[in-house]
């Protein structure tokens, strides 16, 4: 358990090195730290090792340990501070979007990790249905709630982005609309969990509902896309050019760590309640004197 935490951190460090430090070295120190790895490969490594870190962090998570989420929380905040500093004060305004482009540095990573949190919820639901291990029920509840919070945040950021860009708060953009639908679908699942007392039923039903809602994501996306096809197809905001990499990726790693920490914390709350609910029957001696 202890080892998996170290491995996850090492994976994260690899991702941060290739995704962030090499680029920062090129930009500001004019030093080549790439170790001969090409740009495309670096991006791929950063992406894959970040994903692997999330899997190892959560898969090898010791639900009894309360120090780890806090370490992750602090590290995540540090990344976010660095990323936001670069995003707000260092990165140049974008060619077309001007300064509003800076919203993208928090908006895009939030979108990635909202979807990832819900994917983790989906995976936990499938695992729970197969092995009935309540650790996965706790993880499912944690990741769904974090997914809901992120999706809510995403809708707020999306509205703030849409106003200066298209002049309206809500543009029925397929991605944003899908997020809103997802937000309501997963809110419904959290409500369902509140109304079911029996922990076994609660686990199974919410797993089933999670699977059903998650499968809906691509269908909702395509239906909204076609439905809204008469509107202008907005181009993707430019997040690919190198000057924008540092704030975007620093924030991405920061939000990644926050997401993992939030899920861990929330799963611990659920696990404590489940421990209470699933306690074995009390070992009282049968009172033979009172037999019928």
């Amino acid at each position, binding site marked *: 358990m202890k080892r998996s935490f170290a491995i996850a951190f090492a994976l994260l460090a690899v991702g941060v090195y290739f995704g962030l430090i090499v680029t920062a070295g090129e930009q500001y120190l004019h030093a080549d730290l790439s170790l001969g790895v090409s740009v495309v490969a670096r991006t791929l490594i950063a992406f894959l090792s970040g994903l692997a870190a999330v899997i190892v962090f959560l898969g090898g998570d010791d639900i009894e340990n309360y120090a780890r989420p806090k370490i992750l929380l602090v590290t995540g905040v540090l990344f976010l501070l660095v990323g936001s500093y670069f995003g707000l004060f260092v990165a140049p305004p974008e060619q077309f979007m001007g300064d509003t482009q800076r919203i993208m540095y928090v908006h895009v990573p939030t979108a990635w990790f909202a979807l990832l949190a819900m994917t983790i919820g989906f995976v936990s639901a499938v695992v729970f249905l197969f092995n009935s291990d309540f650790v996965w029920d706790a993880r499912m509840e944690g990741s769904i709630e974090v997914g809901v919070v992120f999706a809510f945040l995403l809708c707020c950021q999306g509205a703030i982005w849409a106003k200066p860009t298209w002049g309206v708060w809500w543009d029925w953009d397929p991605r944003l609309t899908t997020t809103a639908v997802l937000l309501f679908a997963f809110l419904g699942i959290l409500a369902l969990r509140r109304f079911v007392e029996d922990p076994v039923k609660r686990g199974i039903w919410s797993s089933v509902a999670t699977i059903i809602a998650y499968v809906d994501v691509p269908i909702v996306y395509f239906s909204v896309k076609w439905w809204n096809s008469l509107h202008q197809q907005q181009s993707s905001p430019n997040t690919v050019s190198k000057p924008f990499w540092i704030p975007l990726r620093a924030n991405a790693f920061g939000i990644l760590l926050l997401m993992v920490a939030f899920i861990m914390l929330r799963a611990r709350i659920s696990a404590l309640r489940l421990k209470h609910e699933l306690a074995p029957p009390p070992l009282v001696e049968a009172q033979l004197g009172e037999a*019928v």
Partner: protein
Amino acid sequence: MIRNVAAPAIEAMNVARRYGRRWALADVTFRVAPGRVMMVAGRNGSGKSTLFRVLSTAIRPDRGWAKVGGFDVEHEREDVRQRSALLAHQSYLYESLTAKENLDVVARIIGRNATAALLDRVGLAGRANDPVSTFSAGMRKRLSFARALLQEPRIVFLDEPYGQLDPEGFQLVDQVIRELKESGATVLVATHQVDRVAGYADCSITLDAGRVIGTSGELE
């Protein structure tokens, strides 16, 4: 599948089941040989109904395991269901359907008929075409009895079979249980009519707070 014929009809090992936070069954272990009539005694809330619901695969045990007719109640539910029937606390009847329709629905799903004969048997032939919603509690009990018998079970769980019945109904239940026994079926009867059932039961267990606190007679 070939199973050992001498194997117990019902075997429960450390069975426990929770409703919410309350353990309705804490730890129940017993075995019954085929063809026996066993009485399950115990006051209200002692776990009799929960035990029957676990054994008839209506609910899963949270701890322990049980086998009915040699089949595991958790993993071989279809096999258990094919061989057993439960007369439950709830009647399992559709209120808007008539007595005959209720039986026909069951008969069609499991591929049997002879519903008319069964209705006659439980004394409801005259009300066969009245909807269940007009029935009294005792008549519902009779109808659910017919519903359980329709499945031609080898192992029968009767939860309070005498509840709400008239004296004539008492006689009917006695007779049906006797016939089931003669046909070689295993019958478990949960009841408060201890004296009445003790007259014909081969053995008995007594439950309290979800545990077995007494056994009598030859269980195996």
